[in-house]
């Protein structure tokens, strides 16, 4: 029985593993066969070698960048959810703010990095965190507010027929209804927070971070080290993405029960 499950999950993941191995194999093979120089594309094996050789530096950089990303992510999520709850409570406010948030979300928010540097200083981490917060905040706010307002009217009427107040409706209907929307936003912003942190690092802040490791090593033509740093950043992003999926599963047991958390009634990303 257990063996069968193992085989089954193996076949489910099989194609992905095959594609992955083939991809890396092709990469390695092409670099060797065509003698592609290190500038262009280092071999996966030499990236791996550098990853191990430079591990102390990379680990430290990954940890520091990860901290910025995670702290900004948490604050951004909290702010987005709280504001969504607040604006949903006041319909007028929501109708005014949502288009504005959609507009701001359509702008390159990372371009704010130099302004945040001016505001919060370039020596500390606050300005980098501010970039992450700003990048995370808008998708979370937009999606959560959407989930809290796009409730089936029957469900609101039902609660009103019970003489339930607005906060009860928020707790019993709007918040659970918004969970899948929030989860979708989470999937997007979790890896995005790492990218935002790295971009912010290009503009300033302490020099021992992933963004700086990449630029300085690329500057010295040590491309395999730069690639190793990218691999570390990807791992951090992937870990956050996995955490987002985990939160999704744990917080919505009813979706699992129906079979497959994914395809069923998955609301879209923000439009």
């Amino acid at each position, binding site marked *: 029985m257990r063996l069968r499950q193992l085989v089954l999950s193996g076949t489910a993941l099989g194609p992905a593993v095959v594609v992955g191995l083939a991809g890396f194999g092709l990469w390695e093979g092409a670099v060797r066969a065509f003698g592609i120089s290190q500038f262009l594309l280092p071999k996966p094996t030499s990236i791996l070698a550098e990853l191990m050789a430079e591990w102390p530096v990379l680990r430290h950089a990954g940890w520091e960048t990860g901290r910025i990303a995670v702290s900004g992510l948490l604050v951004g999520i909290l702010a987005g959810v709280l504001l969504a709850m607040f604006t949903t409570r006041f319909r007028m406010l929501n109708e005014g703010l949502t288009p504005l948030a959609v507009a701001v979300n359509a702008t390159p928010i990372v371009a704010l990095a130099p302004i945040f540097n001016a505001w919060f200083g370039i020596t500390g981490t606050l300005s980098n965190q501010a970039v992450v917060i700003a990048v995370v905040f808008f998708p979370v706010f937009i999606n959560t507010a959407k989930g809290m307002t796009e409730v*089936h009217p*029957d*469900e609101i*009427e*039902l609660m*009103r*027929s*019970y*003489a*339930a107040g607005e906060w*009860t409706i928020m707790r*019993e*209907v709007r918040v*659970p209804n918004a*969970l899948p929307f929030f989860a979708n936003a989470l999937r997007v912003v979790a890896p995005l927070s790492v990218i935002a942190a790295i971009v912010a690092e290009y503009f300033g802040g302490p020099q021992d971070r992933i963004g700086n490791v990449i630029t300085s090593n690329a500057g010295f033509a040590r491309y395999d080290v730069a690639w190793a740093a990218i691999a570390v950043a990807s791992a951090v992003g992937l870990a956050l993405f996995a955490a987002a999926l985990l939160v999704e599963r744990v917080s*919505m*047991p*009813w*979706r699992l*029960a*129906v079979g497959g958390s994914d395809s069923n009634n998955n609301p879209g990303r923000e439009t």
Partner: protein
Amino acid sequence: MSSGGEVPAVVVDGVGMVFNEGTGGEVAALDGIDLTIRAGEFVTLIGPSGCGKSTLLRLIGDLLTPTAGGVSVFDKSAHESRTGQDYGMVFQHAGLFDWRKVKANIELPLELRDWSKTDRNARSAEMLDLVKLDEFGDHYPRQLSGGMQQRVSIARALSFEPRLLLMDEPFGALDEMTREHMQGELLRIWGETGTTVVFVTHSISEAAFLSNRVIVLSPRPGRVHSIIDVDLGERTPDTREDPDFFAAATTIREALRSVGGAE
């Protein structure tokens, strides 16, 4: 107005409803509705689309406020009755909360009334038994068929023994066989609980089979066209083949034809 001195369940007095009043895009949904529903009665609202039958139900339930006239429920205003939690509602869409198990869905109104956990458990078990879903308390709604979901919805509406049950085309989305089965179940439950029911439908046979009285509404703006008494005694599956049942259905059909109902 009241019959036999007892307090009527619902009194609708000169009710009119105009949507978008004062915006230029006014729509008169209901006009001059007078209606009295006795306690324990099963009354059906039927009419072509646009006759305002769902609007009337929502006015009785205080989910909308009439622009003319007033509604009283058991001698209180509809608003007092709603805030006094006298209403149970069932919609066409079962409206179960996906995130609550079946049992927790039934207990939702009880939670809002601060019942203790023990009492809630006892009542939801009773209700599951009433709608014959004893084994499904720990399932999520999505794991149930449409008919089962609607039964849960009825159990939820009845769990706190509301004095008035308002049903808006509750079986509209079900297939014919399930629908007939549910109608039988509803009548059984109505017989056991003795609650008053106001039921909106667009099905002639459903109206004839379920009700003591059928209120036929005419459209644009909605007015009471006629009130048809239906006396079929105790309903059984055989009632559907009874000449009296066909006669009642024919009367309703003719009333609907004369108001321009397509059905």
